[in-house]
């Protein structure tokens, strides 16, 4: 399997895009990840579900602007250089 560093960067961008486009109302609430079921567990064991929810929310908040920049840059580069 000939992986290069470039394919790693591609994979990372695609995965972060995938996490960032998960819509709360339309999709996540069907799995019980919705807005109302917030992080109720303030004990010492939030559980896997709450951690996944926190992860998705934080990726969406933190990476929104950098993703816009990186995606536009990659679109331009792919258009120019194929």
């Amino acid at each position, binding site marked *: 399997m*000939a*992986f290069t560093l470039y394919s790693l960067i591609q994979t990372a961008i695609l995965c972060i895009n995938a996490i960032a486009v998960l819509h709360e109302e339309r999709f996540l609430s069907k799995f019980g990840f919705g807005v109302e079921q917030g992080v109720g567990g303030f004990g010492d064991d939030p559980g896997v579900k709450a951690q996944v929810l926190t992860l998705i929310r934080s990726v969406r908040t933190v990476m929104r602007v950098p993703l816009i920049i990186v995606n536009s840059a990659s679109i331009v580069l792919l258009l120019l250089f194929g």
Partner: protein
Amino acid sequence: MDYTPTQKPNMRLRNSSADGLEGSQLFEDTSGAAHGLQTGNQQAGPQAAGFTGQSMLSDPMSNLALAYGSSLASQGREMVDKNLDRFIPISKMKYYFAVDTVYVGKKLGLLVFPYMHKNWEVSYQQDTPVAPRFDVNAPDLYIPAMGFITYVLVAGLALGTQNRFSPELLGVQASSAFVWLVMEVLAVLLSLYLVTANTDLTTIDLLAFSGYKYVGMIIGVVAGLLFGRPAYYLSLLWCCAAIFVFMIRTLRLKLLSDAAAEGRLVRGTRNQLRMYLTMSIAAAQPIFMYWLTYHLIR
């Protein structure tokens, strides 16, 4: 006289580099032989430089430019050092390379035969872990780094014996192994986050633990090259089992709670999850070891 034009730039360069040596200490003072060469050339220098007056006039300017350039370079180097320390913690990395021969020998023996070792705890010294030089159980980055490089070279050797070698393949092997390593470390980090394991395992620790499997891979490939496929499978099996036991015994102390680490059965989903996590990290090592080496032995 076509010698002098080619000599003159060399003379000017040597003169200015002599000034640079005394001025900014930007370059290391190499040896007396270099000085002898330079003084000999400096004697020939004024002779060649006297041919045109332009070189004499431009020398102060070039000195000024050189001084300015060297001060810029040292400023730039300070800035790079300061900023590099923010991204790659160099001081922390130095801890992982503080090894000596005895430690490396004992650790390699432990990686191949971990069954007799009794005490797997990392000893601390007032809250900071002791340097690897003093404790066999401490993780280091020297063995993984050397193992990675040796793996790439051995892979090139194995491909060469099958007439499948070309210099680009070395780079391909290196980058693909590196990518797998990075993905494994990221997967472990993600699963540690999801299971909310409060450990003191840093990213570099995980990198070190994931890099220990290169030792087993090298042993397997070398055995396969020397003695054929059965030897490859046998030695790989042995090293896989050894790495499995090594990882479980090392990670058990770091990931699980104290009670579970001592072997008592502790109920509760949290400990179960952590146990599964330890098992899967340890089981991923043999899989990677086989995956990264099977195409080298035909």
